[in-house]
């Protein structure tokens, strides 16, 4: 029955055909996302044709997924198409119908499912995301210098109407706002060499986790490849999300949580007297409790050290593996922690059948002004908008991205002790209802903290299809 199992695949050919940044990350300093409308179909097709065939003086080349080794190009250029974009390029009705429903409806129609209500509701999104039907393409330029971004943008603007631009950057040392080191854990794909995950010991993910046309981790089950194969095969889907992060409010909440804990009757269980020295260099009790809360809410200390394997200190000696650990009933990493919700790994979950089936590739950079969690003015709230330009890639948005968002990050169905609560870092929380349970050592139970608001709000986004280079050529020839 498993028609699509290919015993061996020509991984080089696949990597040449898929767009870059899917199977491996570019690790650049800067990104610019262009939200494009197709207003001149002929010009758009011409552009895509050239871009998919290596580019020209006037048109940037689509960066493929093959390893560029030492020949690092000055910039990378990739595109994702929304359903409206496919329509605008003239894709037939019959073909359109072979795309999954969540993609054809688009991100704004799925808002409730992915927690975009209240301040995150699409009707509060700024331009160009207030007219989702006009956002046809999200083109992404990655580079290390701003001049490269400008150059490619100018080329793109000749063929498309640029509705909006979002610039992102790495904050340095792999950090994102809220001060965490990010992009440590990623799925590891069968056949694909990825230096960053070389020593990770999670089970290999089949290619069908990320690309259309290959076996998935669900035995027997495969996702529909949009018709024809030239368009669908080697494609992927992306949930592009602009997620504003309330950095100031996050730090203030950590203050409040630490104040609350200092007065809690069980605080010495959470942090035995004197143990604050061990938590991190130069921390007093209050500061150590702040870091413990931050670490338990994420699943990692802010410097990236996994909480599961190093619950007492952010600087374990000897060092622990950043990626290799698993969860159990005795875990110190709370079941409600962001990372454990997003990927429960091999730990026991309610939906046993779903173990390791909802994997996501994450590619993101930060936007907005700097915020230093170690040095900010508590008296003058800095609430300027800043956050993450996040890309969540998978073969099926419904089975992976949405499934994680609606049952795990929010609602918390996977473990009964957290069911009814939302992800403390980015869930759809309100101060009136939020709750997070901190674990205590030696299975001594938990301390619940309450009253935190929603720290991450959606400010735009789109579901896009990331076509293969073959598919881009197909689209250019419609």
């Amino acid at each position, binding site marked *: 029955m498993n*028609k699509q199992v290919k015993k061996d695949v020509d991984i080089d050919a696949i990597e040449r055909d898929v767009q870059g940044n899917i199977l491996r990350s570019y690790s650049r300093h800067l990104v610019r996302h262009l939200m494009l409308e197709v207003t001149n179909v002929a010009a758009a097709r011409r552009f895509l044709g050239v871009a998919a065939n290596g580019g020209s003086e006037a048109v940037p080349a689509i960066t493929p997924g093959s390893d560029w080794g030492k020949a690092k190009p000055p910039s990378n250029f990739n595109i994702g198409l929304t359903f409206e974009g496919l329509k605008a390029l003239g894709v037939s009705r019959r073909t359109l119908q072979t795309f999954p429903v969540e993609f054809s409806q688009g991100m704004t129609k799925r808002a409730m499912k992915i927690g975009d209500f209240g301040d995150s509701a699409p009707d509060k999104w700024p331009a160009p995301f207030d007219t989702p039907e006009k956002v046809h393409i999200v083109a992404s330029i990655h580079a290390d210098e701003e001049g490269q971004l400008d150059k490619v943008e100018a080329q793109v603007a000749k063929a498309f109407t640029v509705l909006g631009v979002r610039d992102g950057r790495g904050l340095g040392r792999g950090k994102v706002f809220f001060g965490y080191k990010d992009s440590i854990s990623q799925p590891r794909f069968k056949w694909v060499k990825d230096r960053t995950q070389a020593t990770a010991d999670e089970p290999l993910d089949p290619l069908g986790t990320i690309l259309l046309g290959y076996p998935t981790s669900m035995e027997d089950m495969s996702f529909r490849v949009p018709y024809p194969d030239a368009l669908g095969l080697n494609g992927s889907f992306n949930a592009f999300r602009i997620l504003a992060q309330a950095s100031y409010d996050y730090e203030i909440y950590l203050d409040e949580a630490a104040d609350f804990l200092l007065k809690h009757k069980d605080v010495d269980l959470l942090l035995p007297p004197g143990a604050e020295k061990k938590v991190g260099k130069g921390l007093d009790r209050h500061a150590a409790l702040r870091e413990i809360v931050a670490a338990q809410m994420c699943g990692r200390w802010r410097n990236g050290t996994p909480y599961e394997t190093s619950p007492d200190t952010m600087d374990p000696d000897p060092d622990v593996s950043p990626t290799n650990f698993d969860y159990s009933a005795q875990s110190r990493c709370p079941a409600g922690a962001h990372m454990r919700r997003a990927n429960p790994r091999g730990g026991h979950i309610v939906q046993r059948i779903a173990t390791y089936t909802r994997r996501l590739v994450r590619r993101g950079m930060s936007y907005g002004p700097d915020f230093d969690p170690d040095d900010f003015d508590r008296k003058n709230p800095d609430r300027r908008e800043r956050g993450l330009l996040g890309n969540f890639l998978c073969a099926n948005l419904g089975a992976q991205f949405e499934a994680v968002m609606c*049952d795990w990050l929010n609602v918390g169905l996977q473990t009964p002790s957290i069911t009814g*609560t939302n992800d403390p870092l980015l869930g759809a929380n309100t101060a009136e209802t939020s709750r997070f349970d901190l674990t205590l050592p030696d299975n001594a139970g938990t301390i619940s903290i309450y009253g935190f608001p929603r720290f991450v709000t959606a400010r735009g986004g789109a579901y896009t299809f990331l076509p293969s280079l073959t598919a881009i050529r197909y689209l250019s020839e419609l």
Partner: protein
Amino acid sequence: MTNKDTWFNRYVNSLPTRGWFKLLSRYVVVPYWIWRDPKPKLPGGPRESPQPSENTQRMMNLIMPLKDPSPMGRAMAAMAIAQNVDEIFSGLDNVGTVHTARFLILGDNLCMISVYDGDFSNYIRDFIETIGSVFDAVISQIKGAEHMIPTCDHVEEFIEWVHDHDLFQAPDFPTDLFALQDAAKGLPTDGPAHEIMTLPRDLILQLHANPNLSLGGGYRSYPGYSAAQVRDKFGVGW
């Protein structure tokens, strides 16, 4: 105030119970309004909402028309279920989010009635993964569903099909029907108000588009708890 309680007024008041008026309503008035103000069929199943208690103990009322409603065909459908009891029970245990589930043969339909936690698509997808073969056996007895066999190769399509055959769940608060109908027509749900006394008509017309429906979200004795939470509290493992 003059007494307006005339013979004519009393007669008009009694019209809704008079045979001729009922016939008139049924064969002329209602069909006219169905033509004049058609309502889109409203989608089945629980609606998306952020509250945890709306995401636990959700109802599925899946009504599937039997291909062969004769006693023979019914027996085939009954057998398809009976022969797969092991598959179904172990499948439900491994899906982990189901409170109760049962099959009925009702009228010319095979019905699957269940109470489950979490997202509908995840529920059906997980189900196909564990007991796709049972679904195949079941839908081979169903009108207009053969093209989705095997279901594990038609996941997206099958989920949509089930959604379409799941009963519409009337809102818990009657005036919410306005907003649902507006949304189905792509109109803003905070636009100008409807006249409230048109609500009964809107309900009649909606029942034409969705002749079968679930009346509200139903009663729960201990709402807001997942199946795993209940099992956990009783100490029977999850």
